[in-house]
């Protein structure tokens, strides 16, 4: 698997590279000194995994993630303590506290999987004030258009992402996500119940209780998709 190391400190990068030498299955595809370099290298090298420092000049690790369309697997490396990090509520693959313990690195690497290469969106990064999330796309049960932004519903959260619903739809797996109307896309895996509305359209109830009303035209399409 190919990894990119992003850290503004040369010694920190060198130290992590030395630690990774014990893991022959991880190939260091490159090293970036800041967010700008990382953006370019992620686009060019397409790594499976990014080791990402949070505090960097110019662009923080979070700023960087926000600018990525599709987010690779991320392991944060930081001198923050885990409590400070938890405050960000980022469900990264893992985080490593500096100085990094070799056993902790091995544990973190055991969760890394080769990244499927395709046009589909795997993960997105969303920030809402002080909180941010790396969201696995299959965990999103509803996407709702709000102008040029889209509200993502997952777990108990529903932050806004700075992308339009149409832009997102182009990258979603059509076998999983269904356009329910002008403003909504729902995740078929998360449908709990489908009711027939008085209007003749369908009302979908998602796991967690959210209901989505559908037009007659879209209802007919949903019937097709679900009966398949």
């Amino acid at each position, binding site marked *: 698997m190919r990894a990119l190391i992003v850290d*503004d*400190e*040369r*010694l*920190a990068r*060198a*130290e992590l590279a*030395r630690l990774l030498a014990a893991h022959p299955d991880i190939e260091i595809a490159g090293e970036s*000194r*800041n967010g*700008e370099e990382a953006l370019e290298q992620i686009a060019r090298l397409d790594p499976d995994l990014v080791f990402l420092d949070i*505090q960097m*000049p*110019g662009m923080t690790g979070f700023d960087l993630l926000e600018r990525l369309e599709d987010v690779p697997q991320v392991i944060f490396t930081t*001198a*923050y*303590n885990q409590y400070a990090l938890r405050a960000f509520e980022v469900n990264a693959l893992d985080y490593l*506290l*500096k*100085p*990094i313990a070799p056993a902790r690195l091995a544990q973190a690497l055991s969760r890394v999987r080769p990244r499927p290469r395709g046009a589909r969106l795997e993960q997105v990064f969303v920030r809402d004030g002080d909180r941010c999330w790396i969201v696995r796309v299959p965990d999103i049960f509803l996407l709702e258009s709000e102008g040029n932004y889209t509200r993502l519903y997952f777990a108990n959260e529903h932050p806004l992402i700075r992308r339009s619903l149409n832009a997102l739809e182009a990258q979603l797996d059509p076998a999983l996500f269904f356009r329910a109307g002008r403003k909504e896309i729902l995740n078929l895996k998360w449908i709990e119940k489908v009711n027939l509305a008085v209007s003749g359209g369908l009302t979908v109830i998602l796991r967690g209780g959210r209901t989505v009303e559908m037009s007659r035209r879209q209802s007919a399409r949903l019937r097709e998709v679900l009966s398949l």
Partner: protein
Amino acid sequence: MKSRYAYWLCQVLGWGSYALIGALFVTQHAPAARVAIGYGLYFLYSIALTHWLRGYVRRHGWLEKPDRLHHLPAYLAAWAVGFVQAGLVIAVDSLLSRGHSELWQPDVVGGAVFGISMVPLGWMAVYDAVTSGRRAKERELALRDAELRALELQINPHFLFNSLNSIRGLVIENPPLAQDLITRLANILRYNLHRDAGHTVPLDSELEAAADYLALESARYEERLRVHFAVAPETRAMAIPPMLVQTLVENAIKHGIAPLAEGGELHVGSAVEDGSLVLRVQNSGSLAPADAARAPLGLNNIRERLRILYGSRATLDLANREGRVTATVRIPQKI
């Protein structure tokens, strides 16, 4: 010792003048010897009784709470002492007048006892006012001390762990530098953990600690951090609050140099200007508009400490000019 002396002086002067005025009032109604002995004894046992009362009240801590309502038992005890005094006054006067004391008349005795018994209440009120004032001052001093302690910044954990991470890397890459940095880190930890109880230190030891700190940060930032010292020799022995230089330097790196991809210059200088010690920490970069309005935590902390220690005589200014941010601290030196 000083307050003990003041206490006895107040006792003697207070009871002395009270007895003297009382004696002068009655001197035309009774023989001089009877007045002199009666009031003389009154003066002596009043001091003895109220001194005992003071010890009793102190043992019970009746005046120690800030809430005045809790002082009530002390006043009741004082009143009780007042009745003892009244008894003594009447007994002594009866003896001196061979049973013809005017105080022992049925229509007088009630008022006399009541009047005499009130005097120690006045004594207690004065004593309470004096000790409460002193306690309030002590509380204020303790609070000030605690505030200063809280503000004397402890080592930043982020810095500590980043340093350890740099050292871990250097152990393989550059063992002599790794050794040097471990020593410097030990110095910093010792300076933080084992500082004297005082609220000021000589500038020299601050500069040493800052040099250790900067050596560690230089290992981390490498060529991105370029440090220059310009210290006026006559300032080295001058007193400043501990961790002040390090807080300024830390701040300059965190908000000034760390955000610059290409790094920057850091100047640390000291001078004497108009009888004040002037410290300047200057870094490349510029204040974000938001930073100008809302000074970083470290700088607010310094301002607060300067205010507690020097009032309005010491200042911290932050100036932003030509791509450089300068923090200037002025501390008055006692002449």
